[in-house]
């Protein structure tokens, strides 16, 4: 047909990407991302333990990686991911009891997870550096 009309402009159902990013939504996404990162981070734990069980030379290899800039960045990220995923997990456990779903509660919980994970990570690293600098 020559005079076929273009499809009518009908409203589409809401799509994920039209939503304004919200803190609770970002925390949910970050919880999954940190979980995925920690999954592969266990390789670092396994490497550390196997090296310790193998030889002083192998253990020194882990040490030189950890002491490198790249190693420090990875370890810092791992620390934050671990703490963040743990606090996010506690949040999920609170939700499992049926509590914490109110508009203010869930905003507060999301903020507490973020502030808590960043500050705890910094505390752990300050303590870590004090330990390294301390007498052995």
């Amino acid at each position: 047909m020559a005079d076929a009309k273009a499809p009518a402009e009908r409203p589409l159902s809401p799509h994920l990407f039209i939503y304004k990013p919200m803190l609770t939504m970002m925390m949910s996404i970050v919880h999954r991302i940190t979980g995925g990162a920690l999954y592969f981070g266990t390789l670092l734990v396994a490497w550390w333990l196997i090296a310790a069980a193998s030889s002083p030379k192998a253990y020194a290899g882990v040490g030189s990686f950890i002491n490198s800039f790249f190693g420090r960045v990875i370890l810092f990220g791992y620390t934050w991911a671990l703490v963040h995923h743990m606090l996010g997990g506690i949040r999920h456990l609170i939700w499992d009891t049926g509590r914490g779903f109110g508009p203010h509660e869930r905003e507060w919980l999301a903020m507490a997870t973020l502030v808590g994970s960043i500050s705890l990570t910094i505390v752990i690293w300050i303590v870590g550096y004090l330990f390294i600098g301390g007498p052995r």
Partner: protein
Amino acid sequence: MAFRDMSTPLKHVRGLGPAKSGTEQFWRQRLTAIANVPLVIAFVLIVVALLGRNHAAVVQILGSPLIAIIMLLFIISVTTHMRIGMQVIIEDYVHDEARKFILLIANTFFAVAVGLASAFAILMLSFKV
């Protein structure tokens, strides 16, 4: 099926739906999550306490019974938890059946390999001391 058996296969699957075993992984994920809280805190404390120490000291501390037991519990709980978590991620995003199957198998292999290797290393450290 026997010739005279007039019952449908339905009765063999009745009661095996979500209410029976479907919540197993959901529950196990919560169980390991609860266990992970104290174990992760202990793990971080152990790692911080071992920073900068020489190999001999690390071997001795990691191999001591209390630390080794905590580390073993940490490894078992964490690898169980992460296997279920990654399975959920794969099931959410991978819709091609063949690829999903391969990734689910790889996921289990990875979790078991990391868990066993770590546990074996801890046991080696324990019995070496």
